[in-house]
């Protein structure tokens, strides 16, 4: 009898231990969910932080447009912060970025936060932002366009249908680049409005400015870090408690090189990224710096275009 009592008490204890352990495991899994739920129940919305970095290309703007569109459509996203570090890129993608940011800024607050550089095409892109923050060591500006002037003659064995086919004249290029510059300067003047103290000609000089000077001459609004920009974006959307959703650009692919050294396999990885490549100036670019510019390259590449 007593042995029976003993054994039944022992199994009861075992059940307790299992139950407690199971409870701890289950609640450890559920607690974060509950915590998140409680927190997001308090949150009044989301600030979407969208990263704009590297050379502005068509495919990069495709991704950014998608992110911005999502921010406009998703009701829980109340404002957008553009986290920018780019020296510009091609003109047409820069204008596309500008228009997408403008479309977004017409619906929800958009705040730009310049991390390092936001020059040329990248500055073009953030023009419609409601507020622009940057660091004192950052650079903005370089409002201008660069493009190849001359074209190499198309060889006689190539048949063309007209004198301007695949061979614009220097004067035509000059006019195009001038037109693109005017558009760019017009939009800087329009969006920076009364803040800007520079004349059109001073803007068109295409200088880059460090943060303190840019805040003074009105190319940006004020100095501040990314977290300040996020907080400002939330405030503009009327949120005190908010979530942050980060949109990072897709990473460059990794190429693995494997080799065997003394029976051990060594793997070297090398990051491939579009940003490191030198861009030939075969088309007008809104870019701050050309990493390497071969005066002959643009001409040759153009002849085959």
């Amino acid at each position, binding site marked *: 009898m007593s042995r029976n009592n003993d054994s039944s008490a022992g199994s009861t204890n075992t059940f307790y231990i299992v139950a407690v352990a199971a409870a701890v495991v289950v609640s450890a899994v559920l607690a974060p969910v509950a915590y998140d739920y409680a927190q997001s129940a308090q949150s009044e919305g989301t600030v979407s932080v969208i990263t704009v970095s590297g050379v502005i290309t068509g495919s990069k703007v495709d991704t950014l447009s998608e992110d911005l569109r999502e921010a*406009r*459509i998703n009701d829980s996203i109340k404002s957008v912060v553009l986290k920018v570090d780019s020296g510009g890129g091609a003109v047409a993608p820069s*204008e596309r970025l500008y*228009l997408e940011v*403008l*479309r977004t800024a*017409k619906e929800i607050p958009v705040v730009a936060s310049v991390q390092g550089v936001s020059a040329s095409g990248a500055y073009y892109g953030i023009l419609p932002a409601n507020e622009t923050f940057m660091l004192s060591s950052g650079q903005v500006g370089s409002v201008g366009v660069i493009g190849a002037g001359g074209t190499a003659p198309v060889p006689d064995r190539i048949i063309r249908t007209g004198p301007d086919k695949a061979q614009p*004249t*220097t*004067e035509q290029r*000059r*006019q*195009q*680049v*001038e*037109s*693109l510059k*005017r*558009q760019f300067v*017009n*939009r800087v003047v*329009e969006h920076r409005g009364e803040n800007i103290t520079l004349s059109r*000609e001073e803007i*068109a*000089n295409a200088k880059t400015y460090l943060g303190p000077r840019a805040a003074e001459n009105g190319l940006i609004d004020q100095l501040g870090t990314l977290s300040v920009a996020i907080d400002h974006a939330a405030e503009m959307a009327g949120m005190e408690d908010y979530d942050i959703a980060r949109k990072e650009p897709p990473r460059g692919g990794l190429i693995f090189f494997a080799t065997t050294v003394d029976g051990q396999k060594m793997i070297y990885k090398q990051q491939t990224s579009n940003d490191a490549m030198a861009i030939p100036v075969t088309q007008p670019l809104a870019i701050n710096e050309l990493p390497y510019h071969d*005066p*002959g390259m643009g001409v040759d590449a153009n002849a085959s275009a």
Partner: protein
Amino acid sequence: MPMQVRELTAPAAVFALIVTVVLIGALVIPFVSGGTSPEVTNLAAEQTNTDSVQITPNTEEGNIAVDGPGPGESKTVLIDKAHSNRLSDEKLSTLTNALVKSGHTVQILSREQARGPAWNESLRSADAVVIANPTQPYKSGQLAGLEKFADAGGRVTLLADPAAISVGGGGLLGLSIQESSAQYTGLASSFGFAAQSGYLYNMHEYQNNFKSIYATTPAESRNPLSQGIDRVVLREAVAISTASAEPALNTVDRTVREPTRREATYTVAATSGNVAIVGDTDFMMPTNVYVADNEVLLGNLATFLVSGNKRPGAPATPDSNGAQNAGTSTGGAIPTAPTAPTAPRPGDGPSPSPVPESIIAPSE
């Protein structure tokens, strides 16, 4: 068996009902709440002020007119290509065509024709000489011959571009950097000109590019180069300093010279007696020559070249001591530049008239 089927019928019906309700709901809700496509406004068109970004094409009209001496009087114009002069055949073609069309002769001076006494011989047979962007120095003998040529009524035209770094074949690692202005100093200064460093630009009034500046003639100018010109377009011009020469073309207001970035009225073309200088060669390009009044400037320049009255036989045959052999230690009419970069020694040559900034000429 039938018992089991009947037992399953009710749950199956419930299942079907729920699925149907959910699917119908999913179908109906979008119709009730409206589509998700946002309204799209045409921002690209809204944000473009078409008028302000439209570039008016340049009007290209006019003719290159050379008013030369009377009919039948043909002049010979020498074009210096002996000093690795940077002047493309394209640019040269407009000037050559204008001259040939009005009955004059154009000769291209090769390196052989400029060596030693051949230089003065070449000059003797010519009425005018065009020197553009030399990249090799003129020997003191050559300079002396040129001065005598101009003194005797021969017309000299100097053309200068901003000292550009040209990347070409040869040289170390396939790169050779040529500065033209340094070679110019001795040449131009012996005629009282100096081409300033850097290019001119204007951010306010320009033709489609800040480096394509406008130049106009000074008020009431009687300079032969300025006749009939309202304004010309110079694609990449240098400013010309001169103490005594008469300006033929000055830049418009707010033109700036690159390295100093000072706004001023810069002279880009001037004449002094029989010598003319133009701080640009791009206006001679076939694509630029009819823009604005560029064709008038080219015509004036050609007219200037052929309207001199040179004394026959000038420059005279050199003295017996071999003044033409530049680079040797003694000179004839003028002191030659020392071969080493040391200060000129006054007692080195017999001549009493030193050249204002003779250049250091390495012997060939």
